[in-house]
């Protein structure tokens, strides 16, 4: 009897651990482009005659104490809610040290260095699944000061704002800007978390919202109008997506013979085996299905929420 109970409890524990944990999105607090550019923390490039400004986070973190205060206050509060965040400054430092290490690393046997494509380099930027973007303005009316604070939760893949809180604090004659900022974070973080919680609940009920893109190599023998399995390849792929999404929810944004974009794809959080699924796993299933139909392809992934399948080979 004891043995039966032990076996049952082990099975239950296994089931609960495999089914209980969906892939947790990472979140990072970042000052908005608006704030960075207004305060002079940006780099300027000339892109074929058009001047482009890109926020310089490193400079902002090194020279502005207020931004550190706000990031730290938000990180602390989220930590208390049991959801620790990625820290922008640490991520930037890790990226730098990783790049330095990769440059120095050589093989003991052949002396060759680390292989890195331009795409690998491009992907080495500070990123998270959800960006908490902060913007604030100090309003001054005579001797009175107040802070207008905007906190936006942006899905890095779907570009949707999934959470937000904003408002202007009470004007004060005496309080310093850091005090007003701390007060603004305290006032807004609960509302932000409430909308984030609603987003997570929706995700658990209706699946994770991701983007799946289909493209082709220029030398591919297949395009999306090729006949495969008695139908055009674009419809074959669409049927697979329809059959494998939660409540068949997705929409097709664009279709040409060369590319196809699926938006608002609600992929399940777990696969048939009960393992947590991310976009890579989801796209891999489609990739295997296409390969079985004789269409060679390659899967390229961007975080938890975006995958591209390139037709025609690896």
């Amino acid at each position, binding site marked *: 009897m004891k043995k039966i109970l032990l076996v049952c409890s082990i099975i239950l524990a296994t089931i609960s651990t495999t089914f*209980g*944990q*969906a*892939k*947790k*999105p990472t979140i990072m607090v970042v000052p908005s482009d608006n704030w960075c550019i207004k305060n002079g923390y940006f780099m300027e490039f000339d892109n074929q005659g058009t001047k482009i400004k890109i926020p310089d986070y490193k400079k902002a973190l090194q020279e502005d104490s207020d931004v550190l205060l706000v990031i730290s206050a938000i990180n602390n*509060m*989220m930590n*208390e*809610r*049991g*959801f620790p965040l990625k820290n922008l400054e640490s991520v930037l430092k890790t990226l730098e040290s990783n790049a330095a290490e990769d440059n120095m690393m050589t093989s003991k046997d052949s002396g060759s260095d680390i292989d890195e494509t331009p795409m690998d380099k491009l992907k080495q930027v500070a990123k998270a699944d959800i960006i908490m973007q902060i913007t604030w303005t100090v309003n001054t009316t005579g001797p009175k000061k*107040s802070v207008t604070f905007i906190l936006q939760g942006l899905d890095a893949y779907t570009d949707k704002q999934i959470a937000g*809180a904003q*408002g*202007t*604090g*009470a004007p004060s004659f005496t309080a310093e800007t850091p005090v007003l900022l701390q*007060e*603004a974070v*305290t*006032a*807004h973080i*609960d*509302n932000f*978390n*409430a909308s*984030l*919680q*609603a987003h*997570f*609940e929706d995700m*658990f009920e209706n699946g994770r919202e991701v983007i799946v893109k289909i493209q082709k190599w220029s030398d591919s023998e297949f395009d999306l109008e090729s006949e495969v399995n008695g139908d055009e390849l674009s419809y074959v792929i669409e049927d697979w997506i329809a059959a494998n999404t939660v409540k068949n929810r997705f929409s097709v944004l664009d279709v040409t013979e060369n590319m196809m974009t699926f938006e608002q794809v609600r992929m399940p959080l777990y696969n048939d085996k009960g393992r947590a699924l991310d976009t890579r796993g989801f796209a891999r299933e489609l990739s295997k299905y296409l390969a079985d139909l004789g269409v060679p392809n390659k899967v390229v992934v961007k975080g938890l929420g975006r995958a591209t399948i390139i037709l025609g080979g690896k």
Partner: protein
Amino acid sequence: MKNVIKKASLLTSIMLLFAFTSNAQINKKKKANKDTENWRYEIECVGIGKPGTKVIKVWSYSKKATIAINQAKKNAVHGIIFQGYAGGAQGCTNQRPLTNDPALEQQKEEFFEDFFKDNGKYMKFVSTSGDGTPTTMKVGKEYKIGVVVTVMVDLLRKDLEAAGIIKGLSSGF
């Protein structure tokens, strides 16, 4: 004999008086609980408190001013869990309730009955703020009493999460 009768009647009147007052107290409490069970109250934000707390003014209704004051703390905690409040002056922002599920109170009836009983667990998460002087208004035949209280929202949320009543931000991950 007369003395005995006198003493007996004195004792009886004292006992009757005691019975009446205690009965009145019980009735008051019953009335108060009835008012609270109907959750007749309004909440307004008074200011930004320390991190993890909310400073609010709870307006409770009752025919007796003292009863409304006693029920203010219970109403405040109930309001934070189920109602939230609108923003306003003093830098106050809209506050959503701790639960999005309007049926939660009915679904977890047993838990909340115990939680909100007199001197129940809710008392751990609320305290009167400032000097605690209530604002009294007469509305028709009853009083509308406003009391400023501080609710320890973070502790309250953690407690409800631990009891499995509401979901935490990282639950499911």
